[in-house]
């Protein structure tokens, strides 16, 4: 690749107070190139735009400036930190006729991979992490929309995942705009765009973000596309006009409860048929809401808060199948749940009773502050306790205190003990845990 900024050069740029050293090129796309740089001892990423991109999007610079002033909605965004333009000494070093501008952001930490790696089946990841990723994505959009902003062009290409934790990062935040103002040129990416945008009936904003968010969550959860069923099989050459029909002119959800004419094909669309039964009813209802009524009526689409609640609730009821070990998500109200993977009946699990909700005792499940206080925001990133398997006796489950305060444990023997931060205690012997946030009760 020929780099626009010479690797190794020190550039004097307006917008930052110290000179910037270009360490190496990281990559380039249709919009510009991204470099690893060092400014005042700190490693950052610098995106530099190509003239064609700036010409197409006359308000780009203004939007970036406003985003920088507004600051990042949450840590999930690789948000622009500073806008930079070349100073007189830097001009001759740029390999462009029109020098343009760029912006600084944080470097994407190692361990995050493109979400397409998951959808393409190249990634070892668990259902727990995938559901968490869906939650974090909804949470990020929640924070963005609460700031009055919209993203406009979310797709697999700007989402990154950490497979071990399910944490996410959203890149390419340069289309972010004040919702409803429409100071931008981007429409979105076909396949993720809401039908009214693809068909030119509306301009992108928070409502169309909700459609794209649902598509992304669907693709994370199923590795399939919500609108590609039998109708896709009738298409020989999948080109622009065909995508327009599939996603804009005549979209139909593959699991539409009333119209079954676009169901997945058992061979071509096996991923959808295998994964859909995994998920609890409330999640499926949000997809139906968004991809049936919400296809044509943007105000009917599932909201970010609804996604967060449904995904967090699914994680609370996660249970490992006693026969095959797979992660399952049976509803507590289901009298005779079966494992989606091996078909065996699932034994009634132990459920930890909390002031607000229940959490199934399964290795990896966590207790969060919102389980103790319903007024707190749903969050998954500050767990108070985690269920863990005993390191040598795998079927023994313990609960580890992840908080920084000591808890009082009441045991079946009538004994009491103190569970210090970082310690775990055997769940089987436990009746009750008293924490400053509230009590955790086990069934007798």
């Amino acid at each position, binding site marked *: 690749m020929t780099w626009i900024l010479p690797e190794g050069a020190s550039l004097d740029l307006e917008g930052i107070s110290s000179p910037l050293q270009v360490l190496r090129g990281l990559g380039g796309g249709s919009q510009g190139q991204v470099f690893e740089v060092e400014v005042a001892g700190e490693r950052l990423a610098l995106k530099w735009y190509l003239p064609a991109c700036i010409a197409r999007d006359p308000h780009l610079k203004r939007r970036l400036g406003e985003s920088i002033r507004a600051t990042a909605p949450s840590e999930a965004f690789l948000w622009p930190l500073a806008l930079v333009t070349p100073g007189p000494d830097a001009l001759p070093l740029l390999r462009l006729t029109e020098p343009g501008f760029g912006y600084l952001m944080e470097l994407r930490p190692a361990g995050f991979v493109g979400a*397409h790696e998951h959808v393409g089946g190249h990634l070892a990841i668990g259902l727990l992490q995938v559901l968490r990723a869906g939650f974090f994505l909804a949470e990020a959009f929640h924070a963005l929309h609460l700031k009055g902003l919209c993203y406009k062009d979310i797709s697999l290409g700007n989402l990154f995942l950490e497979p071990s934790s399910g944490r996410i990062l959203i890149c390419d935040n340069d289309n972010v705009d004040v919702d409803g103002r429409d100071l931008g040129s981007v429409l979105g990416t076909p396949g993720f765009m809401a039908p009214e945008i693809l068909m030119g009936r509306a301009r992108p904003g928070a409502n169309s973000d909700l459609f794209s968010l649902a598509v992304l969550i669907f693709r994370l959860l199923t590795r399939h596309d919500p609108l590609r069923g039998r109708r896709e099989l009738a298409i020989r050459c*999948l080109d622009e006009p065909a995508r327009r029909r599939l996603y804009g002119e005549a979209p139909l959800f593959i699991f539409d409860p009333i119209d079954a004419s676009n169901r997945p094909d058992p061979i071509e669309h096996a991923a959808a048929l295998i994964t859909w039964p995994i998920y609890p009813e409330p999640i499926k209802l949000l997809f139906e809401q968004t991809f049936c009524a919400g296809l044509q009526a943007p105000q009917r689409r599932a909201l970010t808060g609804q996604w967060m609640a449904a995904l967090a609730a699914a994680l609370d009821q996660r249970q490992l199948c006693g026969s095959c070990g797979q992660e399952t998500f049976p509803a507590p109200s289901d009298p005779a749940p079966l494992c989606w993977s091996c078909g065996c009946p699932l034994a009634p699990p132990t459920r930890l009773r909390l002031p607000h909700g229940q959490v199934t005792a399964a290795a990896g499940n966590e207790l969060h502050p919102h389980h103790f206080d319903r007024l707190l925001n749903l969050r998954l990133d500050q767990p108070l306790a985690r269920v863990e398997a005993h390191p040598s006796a795998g079927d023994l489950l313990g609960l580890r205190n992840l908080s920084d305060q000591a808890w009082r444990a009441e045991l079946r023997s009538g004994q009491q003990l103190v569970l210090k931060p970082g310690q775990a205690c055997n769940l089987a012997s436990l009746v009750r845990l008293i924490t400053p946030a509230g009590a955790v009760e086990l069934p007798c």
Partner: protein
Amino acid sequence: MPFPNVRLANRPLHFIYICDCSGSMEAQGKIQALNQAIRQSLPGMAEVARQNPEARVLVRAVGFADRAAWHLEQPTEVQQLQWLDLQAGGITAMGEALELVAAALQSPPMEERALPPVLVLISDGQPTDDFDAGLAALMRQPWAQKAVRLAIAMGHDADTEVLQQFIGNDPGGGLPAGEIPGASGQRPLHRSGRSPRRPLQASNATSLAQYIQWASTAVVGAASMPASRMAGSGPQANIPLPDLPPTLMDPTDDVGPLVW
């Protein structure tokens, strides 16, 4: 427990190089430059293929000189591809090459469902056989009509007329010179008059490498997975083509001073 072992169904994307191997390609290291450019472009192409879970990118190549023949006949996944050098010598049987490609795009052997194929014709001269018959045979195939057809002219002796016929009419045709629509049929962007719907003029090894890289990454990306759309796009072509690589000013051109 791992996520179930399933993945998004994908469609084949056939990418076919149609390469001039006539004697004139021997001059000034042109054939070497072409082999190098293709070989160098493969890692980037593999990376794009990986980022597009909807596509299975399969590469083939035809060479033409006295006769046309498959240089790489088996559709090969780009990740597995090892480029063997093309050799130059002979005349320019371009028409026959197009007939070979036409046969390959017939169904069968073409799959029933696929992404639009990408055909890249590279030449430095004039066809010496019946180009019109070859092109007509090609364009009778529905998959060829749907294909993204690109052409690269190596040096200034290439017959840009026939290359333009291969590409088809520039849908932005009829515009005054210098007002060529840019990517995705948008407003004019390339004051130089460059357009992906015209033969791309490679006048040295560096620009050849850039065009080959562009065709094998940006165009493959556009044909396999849609990219961001901008407002103001005019009537959409079958596949909106990405911007051409920018003309970068490079005082320290490290690829060599060859000019064709």
